[in-house]
């Protein structure tokens, strides 16, 4: 009897491991779909509270999102494409003309003048040659940018399929989320049922609130920054605005990164230097609105992480996964921290530790 039971456990374990290996490649899809469902689930719940069946509610929300995306494609996308084309055009020209083109940018021109002046004062430094070498390296990197699309077409196709799959998987997760939850809880023994249901609720609440807050903050800060930069006449305002919105996800350092994008754009496009001051003021105003209105309303509670821990997390994320790692490392660490905290408090309350 005992041997049979152990064999059964082994078989279940083997099935789990096989399933894990077989489905491992879709974990990325699943995680992104879960994030997607966390963001839109409250909208579906709103419909449900007004006695609209869940299936219809999901269809309504999907329709709403489709309309919004269609509107964005019609209204915002042409501007974004125009701005991206401008950027690509700039890169192409630079690639075609070599370092000459880069030296047409006022920032590089002024640096070159300073370097020349330094060389004339201290000829032994030979800084100008080094500066030209640097420009050549920069030029080589810029020449490579258009080729990135050609080299990484498989990755681009994967990204497109990812974007298409998320709403599809999300649909089933949304439709049957109550069933999934109940099925999961039905496997929990009675002894652990109360702690399981509380943990599930609290983790669900913490993760959901944080992900939704992040989403709304990106949208609001991105929109505000885009408006401010457009009013100031900064080139690629919408692109930079939304980059700033995404960067804002990183506490303490994100806002600086957003400002840095805007200042870099001003420097590279040869606007008068006074504009840097206006851009800094504008981005600062966006931060004031974010910190005093958007953040308290949308997020509610502050992320209690020490700035040093945030810095180390961003560095570690960047080192491991590049720019994407820098963006998502802080939210991931914060979520892991929140879940661990909830787990610890409840295990202690239920006298299990």
């Amino acid at each position, binding site marked *: 009897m005992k041997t049979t039971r152990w064999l059964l456990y082994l078989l279940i374990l083997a099935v789990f491991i096989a399933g894990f290996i077989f489905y491992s490649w879709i974990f990325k899809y699943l995680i992104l779909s879960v994030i997607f469902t966390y963001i839109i689930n409250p909208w579906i719940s709103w419909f*449900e509270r007004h006695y609209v069946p869940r299936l219809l509610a999901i269809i309504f929300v999907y329709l709403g999102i489709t309309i919004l995306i269609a509107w964005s494609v019609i209204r915002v996308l042409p501007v974004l494409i125009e701005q991206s084309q401008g950027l690509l055009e700039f890169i192409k020209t630079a690639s075609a003309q070599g370092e000459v083109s880069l030296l047409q940018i006022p920032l590089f021109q002024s640096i070159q003048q300073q370097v020349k002046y330094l060389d004339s004062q201290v000829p032994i430094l030979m800084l100008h040659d080094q500066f030209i070498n640097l420009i050549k390296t920069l030029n080589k990197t810029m020449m490579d940018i258009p080729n990135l699309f050609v080299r990484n077409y498989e990755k681009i196709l994967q990204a497109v399929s990812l974007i298409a799959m998320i709403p599809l998987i999300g649909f089933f997760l949304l439709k049957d989320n109550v069933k999934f939850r109940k099925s999961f809880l039905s496997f929990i023994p009675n002894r652990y049922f109360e702690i399981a249901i509380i943990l599930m609720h609290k983790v669900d609440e913490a993760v959901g609130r944080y992900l939704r807050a992040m989403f709304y903050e990106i949208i609001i800060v991105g929109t505000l920054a885009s408006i401010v930069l457009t009013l100031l006449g900064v080139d690629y305002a919408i692109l930079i605005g939304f980059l700033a919105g995404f960067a804002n996800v990183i506490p303490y350092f994100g806002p600086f990164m957003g400002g840095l994008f805007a200042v870099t754009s001003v420097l590279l496009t040869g606007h008068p230097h006074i504009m840097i001051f206006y851009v800094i003021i504008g981005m600062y105003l966006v931060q004031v609105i974010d910190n005093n209105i958007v953040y308290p309303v949308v997020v509610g509670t502050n992320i209690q992480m020490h700035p040093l821990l945030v810095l180390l997390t961003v560095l570690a994320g960047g080192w491991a996964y590049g720019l994407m790692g820098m963006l998502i490392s802080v939210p991931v660490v914060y979520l892991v921290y929140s879940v661990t905290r909830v787990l610890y408090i409840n295990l202690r*309350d239920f*006298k299990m530790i």
Partner: protein
Amino acid sequence: MLWIKFKNWLDAFLHGRGKLDYLRNFPLLCDFSFLELFLFEQIINIRHYKKGEFIYQEEFPLAVIYLILDGAIEVKEGSDQNIKTIVLEKYQPLGIIDLYTENRRKGVAYALKDSTLLAVSHLDFNAFIRSNPKTGIKLLNNICRILSCYYVELQISNPD
């Protein structure tokens, strides 16, 4: 007429009308409409307990309230000298009073015979009231009625 027939069919198709009628046997949910029952059913978990199995123990956080679908539950409260025992039966709620007075369980509860309970997390329960104000008021009204009945019964059984 045709519209009502269509609506009933749609409800049955989308929500499974009729499947939830058993919930109206609970005094807590007796006056709920079908759609209100449908919303409430989403936060319910059905649990089966064997005779003698503990439902909760003293000093546990108040996490879940139960509605007895089948069987009987004994609740023991108080210290060694003054133990108060209550037996709750089919369709009676368990843990409703504590929900608004305590953060922790005051006693222990275990199944007197094989029992089936409907378990609702108190967080889900409160969230349900907050997010469905009209149904929430109905629910709170029913809780008040149940508690007042319980109080009257107590007064009759123990006039002192």
